[in-house]
């Protein structure tokens, strides 16, 4: 197992290298010019050229790529063209809100979706099952921003229970922290709940047909124990896989959710950087997201061994 983990961790290096090359090249050929944005409408072409030169954007592709890779290898993600702040500082400023949003969403989604899926499978064909599936279809179909606006309108504007926007760091207390995250987490989690609930239901239906379940029932094992101890554990591998894949969904959804709820997270940082062509920031954030995704996949692979003893690395 240890050797496997080491092998997988080492395997992230070529993956990250390919990602780095890909991202850098894409940005290099993409249209847009940060120097023109900085210079503003009053600037002359000569002004823009001077700014481009001062930012090093006039250097050849290989020189720029080499310099960037060299900096990364020394742990330096570069400096934002616009803010003049180190990219690592900007990421550090933004990571807590995004991490908080993702963790709360993940907890909410898993704790709601898995029981929903289990109950729907258990009560297959009943009103409960149809309600769960109806919710799943709806949750999958309605865009995140629509859910966000509706939640903000009802719970913030009309009922005045929760704030519309913003983020309060965890260091200022659990109450203010969670208050700002409830609506965004529900908005972002809706599609995730729908996805996990559907997969859980489908997998559970398959497992509930197995002989050992019938045996358990014949032995008089209680319904709850059958569902949650015997069936769910055996249905866990596909569910965990979907949860892992869903992390990418969350990263994408976080961009929209952070904009709708004005949360200063990595999603908004990415969008702002793309619109302004702040290359070092885009590159830094994409590298980080790729690394997180690779890491999540590794964790998911390791979790398989917990749920299915037959899986060994």
């Amino acid at each position, binding site marked *: 197992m240890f050797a496997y983990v080491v092998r997988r961790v080492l395997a992230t290096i070529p993956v990250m290298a390919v990602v780095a090359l890909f991202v850098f090249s894409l940005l290099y050929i993409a249209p847009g010019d940060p120097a023109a944005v900085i210079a503003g409408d009053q600037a002359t072409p000569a002004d823009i050229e001077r700014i481009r030169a001062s930012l090093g954007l006039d250097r050849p592709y290989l020189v720029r790529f080499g310099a960037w890779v060299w900096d990364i290898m020394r742990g330096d993600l570069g400096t934002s063209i616009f803010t003049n702040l180190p990219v690592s500082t900007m990421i550090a400023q933004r990571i807590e809100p995004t991490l908080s949003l993702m963790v709360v969403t993940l907890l909410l989604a898993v704790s709601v979706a898995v029981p929903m899926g289990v109950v729907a499978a258990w009560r297959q064909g009943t009103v409960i099952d149809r309600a769960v599936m109806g919710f799943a279809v709806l949750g999958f179909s309605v865009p995140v921003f629509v859910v966000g606006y509706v939640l903000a309108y009802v719970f*913030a*504007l009309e009922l005045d229970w929760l*704030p519309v*926007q913003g983020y309060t760091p965890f260091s200022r207390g659990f109450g203010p922290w969670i208050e700002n995250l409830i609506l965004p987490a529900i908005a972002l989690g809706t599609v995730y709940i729908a996805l996990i609930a559907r997969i859980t239901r489908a997998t559970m239906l398959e497992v509930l047909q197995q002989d050992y379940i019938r045996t358990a029932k014949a032995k008089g094992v209680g319904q709850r124990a059958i569902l949650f101890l015997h069936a769910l554990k055996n249905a866990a591998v596909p569910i965990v896989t979907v949860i892992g894949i869903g992390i990418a969904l969350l990263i994408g959804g976080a961009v929209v959710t952070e904009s709708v709820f*004005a949360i200063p997270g990595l999603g908004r940082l990415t969008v702002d950087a793309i*619109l302004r062509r702040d290359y070092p920031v885009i590159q830094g954030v994409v590298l980080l997201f790729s690394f997180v995704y690779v890491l999540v996949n590794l964790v998911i692979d390791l979790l398989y061994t917990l749920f299915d003893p037959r899986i060994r690395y």
Partner: protein
Amino acid sequence: MDRRSFIKAGVAAGVVAGSGGMAAPALSQAANRTLRFVPQANLANFDPIWGTQYVVRNAAVLVWDTLYGFDDKLEAQRQMVEGEQVSQDGLTWTFRLREGLRFHDNEPVRARDVVASINRWMPRDPMGQLLRALGDELVAVDDRTFRWRLKAPFPKMKMALGKNATPMCFIMPERIATRFDSFTQVNEYVGSGPMRFVRNEWVPGARAVFQRFDGYVPRNEPASWLAGGKRMMVDRVEWVIMPDPATASAALQNGEVDWWENPITDLVPVLRRNRNIAVDIADPLGNIGSFRMNHLQPPFNNPRVRQAVMTALSQRDYMTALVGNDENLWKTLGGFFTPGTPLYTEEGGEMMKAANLERGRQMLRESGYAGEPVVCLVAQDQPITKAQGDVTADLLRRLGMTVDYVATDWGTVGQRRALKNPPNQGGWSMFHTWHAGADAINPVLYNAVRANGDGAWFGWPNVPAVEAEVPNWLAASNLAEERAAIGRLNRAAVENVVYAPTGFFLGYQAWRRNVSGIVKGPIPFAWGVSKS
């Protein structure tokens, strides 16, 4: 007090009563000393000379002071300057600084700081570049006096140093102004304005914080835009960046922010229905919508094709698309300058108001237009350019032109518009933009109306008759002479369609009714604004 605040205050009061303290009123008082403001855009950088975006300038006026400042009559009044003397021949200006001016690091503002700041500003500003060319010697005479000797008189000196168009001539410490040239971003934000920039609370894209500077000595005159006493009535100004207008609207209604700089027109009725919110015009100088045609490439290298388009376009269509049916928000233009300002003229501007599609079609037929595709760049991420682009594409098609509508983003337009290649080789035929009315008040600040060929703004119009009037305006010694020069400039600019104005439009601002002192102006001036 809203429900959530009421519940929180109750809980806080309970906690405080239990602990024997008295924090609830203090908390409320602190809240009233903090102004939460939603700006038009993200404060992504904070060097007002290096980055010339309006949002940077709007934040910079809190932190950096200026020698002169425009008042609401667009006249430059003394600000840091106590007085100035001009020699008989108009070639030597001697300025004296006010007493007691201090930077936020508590160092006094000295004449050498001013000299260094002017030197850093000049290369980036059109009026500064003129001054630089005319300059013979700019020196600090003593700590409070500096002298500027010119090679030729420059009657617009105070305007240049006090204008509100970007980049403004902000004064910073010499050690910073000399360490970073105009094309390199500063990394210290030390000014002598009424607020300090709290750097460690700055999260670009999310928040910028300004704290009242106790060492600031305001002038005695009442504040008027950038002139007069800049008295801060709050201790702290928090800029809360909200990219989504619907969220900003909800936050304002919910009392989570106090003042929103630029609510979109669609949301104004919702805000007006809320009795806790006031809505009014933001900037009386407004904006001028525009599209620029490429004078170097077919079909718009043919002036008759440009005239056909200008004759056919209906400014009403553009303005309705931009700001809706509220006719208080827009007007049609017969000239290139900002309506309501001293130099506005409609001399020779009949074609701009023609809105005659039939006549435009006929002119296009007579122009020899051979069906060349018009590569029309339309940034989709800017509501103003998107709305204008859609109207233009429809107009051109109705005129009988072939339109290649390029839906893209503002960053790409910014790069592509600088290319002079033919449209089918990565170039362009036209793009849409807008100009702040505050910049369109004279021909030096307003580079969009200039027509000096390669030196002109994108589209590169070359109209000597326009350029001939710029020095005439600069040399004019009174308003009548200035207006005469601008009348001739306007006529030549319309005749040659330097660019196509699509109308003049205003925008709204909105604030909670417990906030008072907000004025209409080209910048959201925070001085004089208080909260109850």
